[in-house]
């Protein structure tokens, strides 16, 4: 694919469309959001440099997830290990699996909106507040009159509820014809 204004626009459109899926595949093995941001930035740069080698725009998500897989491993090698880090082999396994389920990850992200709406107002507000950029759990706990541990347990329950809701919706929603995991 030639690098031109046109391809630049196409790249931006594809990256924007798939960014959350790529991020999700990184976040499965990288816990610090700052690290996820950094890897995502590297993935974007590498993907742009290699964009002309991509023959099927439909496969952008999977292609970018494969790039992410190598960027994660490279990032981890350069970085001082922390004691609770997954080892390379496991990271490789998880990210390889993530690259093969881009469509279902996209569906999950879409269904999350729906499941979030089904939460009681109070819980929906709380969880969105907790995930706002820069939100610190201790500060939020103080605001809400909860202990840090109590807030963590509550958020954990909400995450689990959302995940279960998304699982349910995934099994009941009609499948679109032609959807395939390599999209």
């Amino acid at each position, binding site marked *: 694919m030639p690098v031109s204004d046109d391809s630049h626009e196409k790249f931006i459109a594809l990256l924007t469309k798939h960014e959350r899926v790529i991020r999700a595949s990184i976040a499965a093995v990288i816990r610090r959001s700052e690290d996820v941001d950094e890897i995502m930035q590297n993935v974007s740069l590498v993907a742009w440099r290699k964009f002309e080698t991509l023959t099927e725009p439909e496969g952008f998500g999977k292609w970018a997830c494969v790039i992410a897989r190598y960027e994660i491993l490279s990032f981890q090698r350069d970085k001082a290990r922390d004691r609770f880090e997954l080892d390379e082999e*496991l990271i490789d396994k998880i990210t390889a699996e993530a690259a093969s389920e881009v469509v279902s990850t996209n569906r999950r992200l879409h269904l999350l909106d729906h499941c979030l709406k089904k939460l009681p107002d109070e819980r929906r507000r709380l969880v969105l507040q907790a995930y706002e950029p820069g939100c610190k759990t201790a500060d939020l706990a103080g605001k809400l009159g909860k202990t840090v*541990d109590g807030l963590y347990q509550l958020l954990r329950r909400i995450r689990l509820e959302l995940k279960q809701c998304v699982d349910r919706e995934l099994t009941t929603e009609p499948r679109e014809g032609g959807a395939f995991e390599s999209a």
Partner: protein
Amino acid sequence: MITPDDLRMLDEWRHDRISETDFTTLHARLEESSELRAELRALATIETGLTALAEPGFPLAFDDSATSKKPLREQLWLPWTTAGLAAALALFFGIKLISPDSTVTNPVASPSYTALLVDEAGAVFARHRDPGEVGFSTGDYELKDGTAHLRYTNGADLVIQGPAKFRIENEKHTLLETGRVRAIVPPPARGFTIETPQLNFEDVGTEFALSVDSSTGESGMQVLDGQVNLRRKGDSSLLHEVFGGEWIRYRDGAGMIKNATALDLSLFPSPGNIGYLRWRQERERILADPNVIAWFPFVRESNQSVLTNAQRRNGIPDGRIAGARWVSGRWPGKESLLFDRETDYAQIEIPGKYSELTVAAWLKVDRYDQEMHAILNSNGSEPGDMHLQLTRHGLPRGGIIGVERPIYEWVGNPVPIAKWTHLVQVISMPERIHHIYVNGDLVTKTALEQQDSVTISPGYCRLGNWLKSADYLHQSNRNFKGRIDELTIWNRALSLSEINDLMERGRPSLLWNRENPPMGGPLPKP
């Protein structure tokens, strides 16, 4: 198959709360279970989605103006952002004065609490209460187990012993259906009334114990101090006045029981007892931790010169107390050692060699009046000996003899005077770190140089003092001035989340504020 434990570990790992043991288990489970790996990716997807949805200006897919995000944020909470329960309490008592807009109706944002949970020990409430929730609005509650200390907006304290069922009607009136409570009522709350199925107990100052038996319905009340008026339900007519030291028992049909026995007051904990109860419940958990090599709970034995190590399995002997005196600790009933004179100390021995070590202590400083104050220092100065001490500014210093420190700096606030404080020293030779945390915040940051020939070997140590070797005889004394009431030692490096968890479990009360004031001037160099 995915177990609830798998899910717990997964979430704890993602949120940096996992223990080392659990992480090892989780890693092995992830390697073997594709189902668990899929669960991890699904969870990461949910959180990635939530992060995107919570971005300011991100349009929610559903169009619901009542829940659109901008108004939500504008509605959320008053401008009080100080962390911790102390701030919540400040708000609790001040909210009526500072609330800028009483029309805001956000169920999360504008609590109209009648009481707050200020402390608890093993408290388990029935449904409708989230763990860690501290606000109590008017309504029905069931404390299934444990002890809870509630403070009402008017200042009245109620210590409830589970199992108990009660309803908060308003700040001056609570219905006790069954259970045991102790009420402490200050002058502004005069008239604070606890209603039982038979009677109203109106406090006219200052402290009483009350029980309602779930099987017989019998009410028993004993006035500990001051006066309580018994009023008939309905017309509120005065039935009886009960004064300090007196008690009554009342049963439907039988009325006031003659020659009734006094209440067993040991079943009615006071506010000060709760932290101690909570701490005692930790005993089993601490002793079950395979990495705890020594736990000195500071319990006075019949031989008062013995400092008992309750963790018996590692061969670390009891300590020997010299000079330091037994005084009160973090809570009534909890003991501590007071170190004050130059000759006060407790000698302990930590035999063996370690690549990692964590030392945690609860202490309360009386004063800083010399260059250095030893908390736990090895005797002598052989390679591998360990120091943990406080400077005259209250800043923690520590080191391993024979290991250089290319990075050694203070990055946090000192240990204050006259406040129970949690001090934790974490040393890891493989990771080349030696950090000291004060109330869960990193204060002394140290990188160790690669030094394969030295391992941590504290050996004989003095708690609250330092036995100088010949090389250091010219140096001034380093005796600590204050109290220590718990010392725990692990043979591994605890993570920050574990340190915070430890601090939370041992906090003197829920009102205790972990924040410490900064130094008056710039932080010095170690």
